[in-house]
């Protein structure tokens, strides 16, 4: 069976902006893994193929070995097309290899053709047998799905979905705990220098080979497991509270790493971090608080960058994803959504529920920032400006990547050019507002 992950049909993928401007939704992380990892682990397909928005197709092909936007993958096998926002838990593993489904079970990964739609009529999954595939229109993924929906049995389903980026942040503690247990690894396989304090059960701590834990470090697993992956180094006076996952080749520098953090590969983290997800190659090297936040890749948070994740009146936090309309998160704890390649200056203060668009550059003024900074915006002297333009931001990205032995490619530039256009209306409105303020 071939799993087809589709992120090109959703009308509301902006619910996951700015994090999915430069990646498909299944690359988002929660717990110890990406959403794709979770789906693949549950569904157990023979192979996987991807359909991403056209503008990121060429770039994504440089990132993965599997087929991207290739319509030939829509034939020659049983297919399971899945909207990546569907939670993996709803695919019953007992049904992955064709067992008869018990009553009230999740969605069977294999079986007769069936199209699962939600109450809005959106296709959440399409299970299509190889025999039925031949009768469908296969010119494009859009036509293929529309054809399947029109000709194969539809079932109304109430699969649980990830609806916004903050859902992932709020679920992070539980996901780490669940995935740590499923992995079944524990113990010290890396280098640990004494004195080391482990609180809670040692069974809830795993230090992978090649990881180094310096003296005077506390690993507090009393309330959840701690997984320190290969090549990661924990400097003295760091305190790591579980549940926590620290990816490969990262560095913790005297960090107060509170519960619920997932820190990606090759990150440098200091200061206080709580219940946050940080993608690879991002740095929060210095002091400052980051809480209940989702940070993209190649981000640098300057010294004393601090975000609020709780309002003074303890009311639920709202977020402006489009710069105009506030969305009530329903949670009293939501920090910042920070897109890829964002750079913040020293002393940046991010308000509760802030949105910092991809490639944005912040020069703080000492006051809390507006809650929405558009992608590619240069926030200078308290207003959003064009700054020195996207060319200068690309130069900075190239420099940052080359320092880690990575290349900025033509495909990356073309994708970000497209993102620049997609995000242009919101940015122009913010720049116009800034110009008016400046001329008053």
């Amino acid at each position, binding site marked *: 069976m071939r799993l087809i992950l589709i992120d090109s049909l959703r009308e509301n993928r902006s619910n996951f902006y700015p994090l999915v401007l430069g990646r498909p939704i299944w690359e988002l992380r929660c717990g110890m893994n990406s959403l794709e990892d979770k789906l693949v682990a549950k569904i157990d397909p023979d192979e996987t193929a991807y359909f991403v928005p056209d503008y990121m197709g060429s770039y994504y092909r440089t990132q993965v070995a599997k087929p991207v936007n290739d319509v030939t993958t829509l034939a020659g096998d049983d297919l399971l097309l899945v909207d990546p926002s569907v939670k993996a838990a709803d695919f019953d593993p007992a049904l992955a290899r064709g067992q008869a489904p018990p009553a009230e079970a999740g969605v069977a990964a294999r079986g007769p053709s069936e199209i699962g739609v939600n109450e809005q009529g959106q296709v959440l999954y399409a299970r299509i047998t190889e025999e039925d595939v031949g009768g469908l229109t296969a010119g494009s993924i859009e036509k293929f799905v529309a054809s399947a929906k029109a000709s194969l049995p539809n079932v109304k389903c109430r699969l649980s979905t990830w609806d916004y980026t903050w859902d992932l942040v709020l679920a992070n503690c539980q996901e780490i705990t669940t995935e740590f247990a499923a992995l079944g690894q524990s113990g010290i396989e890396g280098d640990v220098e004494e004195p080391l304090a482990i609180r809670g059960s040692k069974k809830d701590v795993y230090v992978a080979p090649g990881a180094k834990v310096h003296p005077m470090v506390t690993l507090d697993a009393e309330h959840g497991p701690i997984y320190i992956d290969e090549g990661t180094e924990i400097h003295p006076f760091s305190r790591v509270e579980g549940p926590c996952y620290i990816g490969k080749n990262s560095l913790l520098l005297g960090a107060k790493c509170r519960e619920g953090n997932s820190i990606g590969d090759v990150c440098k983290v200091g200061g206080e971090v709580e219940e946050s997800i940080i993608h690879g190659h991002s740095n929060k090297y210095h002091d400052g608080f980051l809480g209940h936040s989702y940070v993209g890749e190649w981000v640098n948070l300057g010294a004393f960058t601090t975000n609020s994740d709780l309002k003074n009146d303890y009311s639920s936090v709202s977020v402006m994803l489009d710069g105009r309309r506030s969305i009530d998160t329903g949670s009293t704890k939501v920090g910042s959504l920070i897109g890829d390649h964002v750079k913040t200056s020293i002393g940046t203060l991010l308000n509760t529920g802030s949105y910092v668009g991809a490639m944005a550059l912040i*020069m703080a003024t000492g006051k809390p920032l507006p809650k929405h900074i558009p992608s590619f915006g*240069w926030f*200078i*002297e308290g*207003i959003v*400006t*064009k*700054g*020195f*333009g996207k*060319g200068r931001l690309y130069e900075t990205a190239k420099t940052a990547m080359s320092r880690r032995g990575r290349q900025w490619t033509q495909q990356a530039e073309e994708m970000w050019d497209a993102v620049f256009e997609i995000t242009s209306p919101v940015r122009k409105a913010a*720049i116009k507002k*800034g*110009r*008016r303020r*400046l*001329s008053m």
Partner: protein
Amino acid sequence: MATVEERIRAITTKKLGVEDMKLEDSFTADLGAESVDSIELVAMFEEEFGIEMDEDAALAVETVGDAITFIRKVCKEQGVETEE
């Protein structure tokens, strides 16, 4: 309505606090504009004239005289009427 040159001089004075300036004066070397000031000047010129300037081209402008020439050209291209 004031001329393009008068409007540019007024904005430059407001932003940089410089009363006397010559057409050949450099915004950075002679009038003391730092990089952030340059970005703000571009924004203020755009607001004043109701135009959109390419940031690379705008920030490549060095002198007051060049700014006058550049903004006249952009106004013309974007159909914005100005006094001369």
